[in-house]
């Protein structure tokens, strides 16, 4: 019978140099950034391990900053603090979705690090963050000939999802663009093939579409988004014509979503048909 592993040692470093030293000495050490389940889960979803690094002393990870265009949130900021601080400037859809997904006690304990690593790819929040063009700061441990150093990289969330998770990395900061997105629609289609989630965001000026985002998420597939459609919609009064709707359905099939002519196709076309009516009805 295999011996049950547990935590041998918990390290609470105060700066990055300390973390590098620990990673150098204890190769299997894992970073914990505020998510927790029945089994201990750290970034990357490893269940059990022998050394745990809890970077609670790093002020950088607990900070919320704001520039003219973005709001930057550290991985150890709680979700409640995040949405309360950014209530007036965050996109309403993000605020609503976090409140809907996590009850108050969970929001108090879960950290932004959970949004970045703890959620499954099929979670609508991940798609939403992709559609909002959120980017994140990723620190990776690189071991050279003599010593380990940290490589810092800013990348879009969608780009990050394409990469494979590597063991020695920490997602430090989430950057959300400040843009209100007055209209949004989130719909699920449950059919024989599985569950397809559709998220559409739009800004309308005098009935014309001034900005638009559309994305799909299906079970284990990575978020699906086509920027060409979005660009072609801007400045229009009507969203999609019949041919474009058919193209969207075909695009989903090409990307691995199981087809269903009887239920999925008519439901999808109806949702795409009614998008604009839905947006015009709801003013926030």
């Amino acid at each position, binding site marked *: 019978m295999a011996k049950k592993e*547990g*935590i041998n040692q*918990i390290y609470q470093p105060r700066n990055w140099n300390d973390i590098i030293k620990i990673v150098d000495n204890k190769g299997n050490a894992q970073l*914990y950034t505020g998510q*927790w*389940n*029945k089994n*201990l889960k750290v970034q990357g979803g490893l269940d059990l391990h022998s050394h*745990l690094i*809890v970077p*609670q002393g790093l002020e950088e990870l607990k900070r919320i900053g704001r520039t003219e265009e973005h709001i930057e949130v550290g991985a150890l900021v709680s979700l*409640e603090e995040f949405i309360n601080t950014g209530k007036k400037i965050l996109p309403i859809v993000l605020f609503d979705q976090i*409140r809907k997904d996590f*009850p*108050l*006690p*969970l929001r*108090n*304990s*879960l950290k932004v690090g959970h949004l970045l690593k703890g959620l499954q790819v099929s979670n609508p929040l991940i798609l939403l963050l992709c559609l909002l063009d959120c980017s994140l700061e990723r620190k990776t441990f690189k071991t050279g000939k003599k010593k380990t150093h940290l490589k810092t990289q800013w990348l879009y969330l969608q780009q990050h999802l394409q990469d494979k998770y590597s063991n020695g990395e920490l997602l430090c900061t989430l950057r959300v663009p400040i843009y209100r997105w007055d209209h949004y629609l989130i719909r699920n289609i449950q059919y024989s093939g599985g569950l397809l989630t559709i998220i559409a965001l739009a800004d309308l000026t005098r009935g014309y579409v001034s900005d638009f985002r559309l994305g799909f998420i299906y079970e284990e597939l990575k978020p699906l988004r086509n920027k060409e459609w979005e660009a072609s919609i801007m400045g229009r009064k009507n969203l999609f014509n019949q041919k474009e709707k058919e193209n969207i359905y075909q695009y989903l099939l090409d990307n691995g979503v199981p087809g269903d002519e009887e239920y999925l196709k008519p439901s999808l076309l109806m949702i795409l048909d009614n998008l604009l009516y839905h947006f015009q009805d709801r003013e926030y």
Partner: protein
Amino acid sequence: MTIELFLNGEHKKLTAQADLALSQVLQLECRGVNPGCGKGYCGCCTVLLNGKLTYSCQIPFFSVKNQSIMTVEGIQTSNIFSDILKGMKRAKLDICDYCAPARTLSFYSLLKRADRPNNQEIQEVLSSIHCSCTHIPLLNQAIFYSLEEKYTRLHG
């Protein structure tokens, strides 16, 4: 591992395995913490961590070092607790033993935080505990009566 913390206002040293959930450790110390589902769904293990409502099954034991934890035992002597009891009595609320400690604690956090909570705040607190023993309108009424009791106590 042994850590120091403030449990119901008292300084304590607790010894347990580091990778246990806080609810598993607290249920040995206090009767007011139910282990519940252990997955963050039912809300029966709710405690106040640094004054904030939290599911203790979602908190690792090692992370509460030097932090303040309040369970229902810790609020029993407070005025707000007696307001809640009066409010519940007036609303003829009879909640089950399973969710009663967590429910009372969630009412306490609401009453402590706001004098006039809006409907959204009330709904958030009510929906944080998933027990179907009582109708939501009755719980709503109990909160309103508790708020009334608090107002009467403070302003006469």
